[in-house]
């Protein structure tokens, strides 16, 4: 199944059996961890931008599918990156970094869902506290007709996803929207693969009921 044929290529590696090369993000994370251990904090900060490059878009997507709010999603992604930066000594290089990151991101989204009104826990630098989003260049906007059409269906789909019970939605987002393996999803969410599959089937069945006319 060409799951990500017209989507950005997945960055995250599957849960790799021993002996397979670590993912790019795992390599960078290990470097950062070593830098921090040796006291090279500034270098570690600088290197962290490579990790953000690798995972940022994916983090935004996952957070957005969960939270359905651009500001909440951006804050959740920022929270997750800050948490992994501050807790990097806890990262175990024997596992793909993406799994650890996803777990932290998803937990953050759950917390955020529980209290939508909570303000950003990690302070934004004062110099960057200006309007949330910069103005869009007019040329990047789709035509009003195309926007209306796709918006309607996208809205239906987003609405149906929002109706899924939390666990089904988490599993569905990671498996079908983020394109991760059931093993990855299971490890990130603390579920067995069999349970991941059960949640997937239920999510699909429910979505079909909601979206098929």
């Amino acid at each position: 199944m060409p799951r990500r044929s017209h989507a950005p290529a997945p960055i995250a590696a599957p849960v790799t059996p021993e002996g397979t090369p670590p993912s790019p993000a795992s390599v960078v994370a290990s470097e950062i961890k070593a830098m921090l251990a040796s006291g090279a904090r500034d270098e570690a900060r600088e290197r962290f931008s490579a990790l953000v490059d690798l995972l940022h878009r994916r983090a935004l997507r996952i957070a957005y599918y969960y939270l359905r709010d651009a500001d909440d999603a951006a804050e959740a992604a920022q929270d997750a990156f800050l948490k992994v930066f501050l807790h990097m000594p806890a990262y175990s290089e024997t596992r793909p970094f993406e799994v650890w990151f996803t777990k932290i991101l998803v937990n953050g989204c759950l917390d955020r869902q529980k209290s939508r009104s909570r303000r950003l826990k990690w302070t934004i630098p004062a110099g960057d506290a200006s309007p949330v989003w910069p103005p869009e260049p007019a040329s990047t906007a789709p035509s009003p007709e195309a926007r209306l059409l796709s918006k309607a269906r996208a809205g239906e789909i987003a609405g149906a996803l929002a109706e899924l019970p939390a666990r089904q939605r988490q599993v569905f987002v990671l498996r079908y929207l983020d394109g991760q393996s059931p093993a990855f999803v299971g490890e990130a969410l603390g579920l067995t693969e069999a349970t991941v599959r059960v949640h997937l089937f239920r999510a699909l069945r429910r979505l079909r009921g909601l979206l098929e006319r």
Partner: protein
Amino acid sequence: MSIERHLNDTRLYALLETAPADPHLASCPHCQARLAELRTFTEEIRSGADGSFAQVFTETRIDASKRRILAAIEAQPAGQLLRFPGAGTPRVPSLRARPRWMVAAAAGLIVGLALGRWTQSDRPVQPLARGIPPHVTAQPAVYAVSVAGDDELLTALESVHSGPVGMLRAIHELTPLSEQHDTTW
């Protein structure tokens, strides 16, 4: 499986996840069409979700979000690195929360037994702990049986969770939760 008997939905969803090497599927155009339709459906959901993301997160916004993250990292004081509780302890991937239910179920049974004997010693013997549906004891099987069985058992399990099991819940709440929002391995 005979050609007359089509694949049920659970099996069809399972085939979506695995390589379609099902003998019935190989010889049944109807089920092949159903599987293809299911694939198309998941593709539609994904492209709809992608579209909704792209409408909101334009490249300009994605760049702005990234700059903000990097600025926030830059603003973190050096040397203030934290450890998650239990950092370095390998995380057991099995479902530790489930045994808590089993412990709670066992405790509930014991309490129910004690209460039953105490309050009903002169009455005919009643089923123990009426509040505990029989599927509670079937929970461990959820992780050992096939996918089709999982589905039914999960349904049963969910009905237990939403059912009148106040005593079990109370015991459950008292059980220390070792990995709530676990961020360790």
